[in-house]
């Protein structure tokens, strides 16, 4: 019996000794470094002001003396829509002081501006659609420019991004999700910038009667 008890005690002591040897006694006292990395996204503030200066509105393309701008009911000073109002198929119109983009960022590399059409130019009356490239943009100024309907502009491209939302009313704006950004409409290495644009609408000669709309979506990205 004594031998049996001694045997048990021997096993217990041997086990305790083994645990003492293999236990990580230094874990509670060790020190080390953890390499934590993160990327702080730049802050970008961006305001878009349609009809930013009066007299804003549409002017029929013509050489020489320019007519006074006119608008449709959707346009309002510093807001609303860029509403060309009544237009004739086959004619070209300049819309003066259409959009002002004001951008500030803390990105030391500046920022890039993208602008694309979220939809085709769509006739709400019969559903017919026309290429977004009937709509153009051209640089303007804060309070003046010498643009006419024949001043060269650059076409808005239809987006290849994924469009969510977007209807024919100002209350249903779309968003574009990009997998790849398109060609920029503007780029700067500065931390803030103002961009002023006139628009041009080359109404397709075959355009049918009706009310048309297209959403232009500007995206500003820190560089």
């Amino acid at each position: 019996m004594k031998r049996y008890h001694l045997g048990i005690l021997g096993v217990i002591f041997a086990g305790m000794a083994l645990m003492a040897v293999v236990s990580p006694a230094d874990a509670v006292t060790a020190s080390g470094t953890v390499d934590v990395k993160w990327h702080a996204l730049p802050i970008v503030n961006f305001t878009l002001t349609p009809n930013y200066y009066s007299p804003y509105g549409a002017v029929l393309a013509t050489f020489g003396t320019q007519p006074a701008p006119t608008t449709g009911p959707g346009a309002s000073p510093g807001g609303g829509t860029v509403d060309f109002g009544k237009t004739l198929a086959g004619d070209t119109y300049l819309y003066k002081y259409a959009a002002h983009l004001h951008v500030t960022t803390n990105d030391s590399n500046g920022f890039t501006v993208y602008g694309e059409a979220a939809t085709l130019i769509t006739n709400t009356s019969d559903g017919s659609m026309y290429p977004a490239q009937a709509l153009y943009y051209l640089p303007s100024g804060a309070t003046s420019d010498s643009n006419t309907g024949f001043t060269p502009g650059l076409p808005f491209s239809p987006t290849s991004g994924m469009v969510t939302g977007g209807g024919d009313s100002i209350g249903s704006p779309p968003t574009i999700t990009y997998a790849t950004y398109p060609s920029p409409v503007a780029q700067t290495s500065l931390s803030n910038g103002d961009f002023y644009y006139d628009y041009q609408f080359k109404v397709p000669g075959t355009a049918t009667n009706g009310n048309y709309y297209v959403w232009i979506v500007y995206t500003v990205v820190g560089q």
Partner: protein
Amino acid sequence: MKRFQLLFIAVGAVLLGLIFAQPVKATIQTQQSQIAINVVVQVVGTPVGYVPHQTPARGGLTIASALRRAMPALQREFRAEGLHFDSDPSTLIAQAQVQKPVLVQAEVTPNPKGTILVSNVPNVTMTAAPGQTVTLMPKCSLTVTVNMTTAWSLEEGITSDFAASFPGKDLANDTYKNSATPVPTATPYIVYADDGSVWSGLGSGTGITTYCVDLTITVPLTVTDGTYVTNAVYTLFN
């Protein structure tokens, strides 16, 4: 005195003769339509560049392909971050961005004259390097059509130079009826802003006619990379 009167009468007769000898159409021509075709020239110093508006195939996107497609700024971003891409391709771009939309509207009314002078496209883009001459391809990819069956005449020109260092006359056109053979040489456009605010005559006819317009651009060596644009204007008279 009689000699002087005779001389006066003779000079008057000559002047009258000159007036009546002028082309009749010059006095009765009326502008019927005028269209402008946007001509964009992308000047790039190297033939390698990213292609805008390319959508990566869903499910087949790799980091390498994203880097190839991304703009240089994004390429730096991806290299620095070693980004982990989610399976959802919409989350690929880890950049701060802000979006704002603007709605553009118009009320369009059909125009009886809206289709008497049309181009097949409103905009053409050509890409060339400084010092290079490039012709818009394929041939006859730009057309201008007159849809009139009464007597008409057509004039052409471009509105302005591409830039101060990039004259509009560097844009030339080989214009021919689509049933005819292209002319072997291209002629520089007249530039409305530089050449006395006039257009040059292209042709006349009495029937529906389509012209092929093959554009050729020669980019001066001094022009830097960028996007340059002008308008080719066609004016129809009857």
